[in-house]
């Protein structure tokens, strides 16, 4: 294997890695928390889009009002995980969770609810509505590492991979090793 082809392979692989990074949608009305969560997830090799409201989040998930009226099957950027703050003005994280789980095309996307308040009834309510997890803020890097296992990947592979642990198996399947 000469050096040029290994360079090409590295470059090619890098481009593929960019495309295949899990895509996380972070929803929070606090700019500070959006910035911190964005960094937490990009440090865990995820692609991140942020939204400052539930309404904005739904638009990004392809569920905006305009799309409903025009009947275009609009596929927004494919999202693998939604992380939403609970307390938001207007549409709360719980309301957003409900809307996601009620929608036929996006109900499969795992939703994590985060909150600064440890209220058992709130936690129960969210889990019952289909939230994958409920995590107390502020989030740590270790919380995010655990969440990677929840992300469903868009590529046609069976089962779920925690990429960090199974990187070599993943590459073998793809014929890269």
């Amino acid at each position: 294997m000469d050096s040029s082809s290994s360079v090409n392979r590295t470059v090619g692989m890098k481009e593929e890695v960019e495309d295949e990074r899990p895509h996380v949608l972070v929803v929070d009305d606090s700019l500070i928390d959006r910035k911190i969560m964005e960094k937490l997830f990009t440090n865990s090799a995820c692609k991140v889009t942020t939204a400052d409201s539930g309404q904005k989040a739904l638009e990004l998930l392809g569920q905006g009002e305009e799309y409903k009226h025009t009947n275009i099957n609009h596929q927004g950027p494919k999202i693998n995980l939604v992380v939403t703050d609970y307390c938001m003005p207007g549409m709360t994280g719980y309301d957003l969770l409900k809307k996601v789980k009620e929608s036929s095309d996006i109900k499969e996307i795992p939703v994590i609810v985060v909150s600064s308040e440890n209220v058992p009834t709130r936690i129960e309510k969210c889990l019952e509505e289909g939230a994958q997890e409920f995590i107390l803020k502020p989030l740590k890097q270790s919380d995010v590492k655990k969440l990677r296992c929840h992300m469903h990947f868009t590529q046609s592979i069976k089962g779920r991979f925690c990429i960090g642990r199974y990187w070599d198996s993943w590459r073998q399947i793809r014929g890269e090793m």
Partner: protein
Amino acid sequence: MAAVVQLQRQFIEYTTSLYNEGYLDDQFTQLQKLQDESNPDFVVEVVSLFFEDSEKLLNNLATALQQKTVDYKQVDSHVHQFKGSSSSIGAQRVTNVCVHFRNFCEEKNLEGCLRCLQQAKHEYILVRNKLEALFRLEQQILQAGGSIPIME
């Protein structure tokens, strides 16, 4: 060389005191761990957002508490935001005041709220000054050609 070592020692002592005196908690360490070469100013950026946000919130709180008829829900909403942002950057003493502040909001206790506002302002100014001093020390170390010690 000696100057760098001196500055680094100062940095370590100062940072340690901030944790010991409760100005900062583990969340601040978490933020520092997030910083890397791709985002070398991450902590300063987040903390600057906190400063801007806090000053706005403190003004809003003062205005809300000066109304003839105080809207305690509105006051509580501002305090909730302040509690959240201070907790996100590890400004522990500010967060603690916000907890008490929310209790007074629930009780619709104006005097209690006003006292807490003063305390929140006081703690905010203290932590802001300390963080600014910390960042200045970091700059001095970097300019003297040294690297910032990692605190565990």
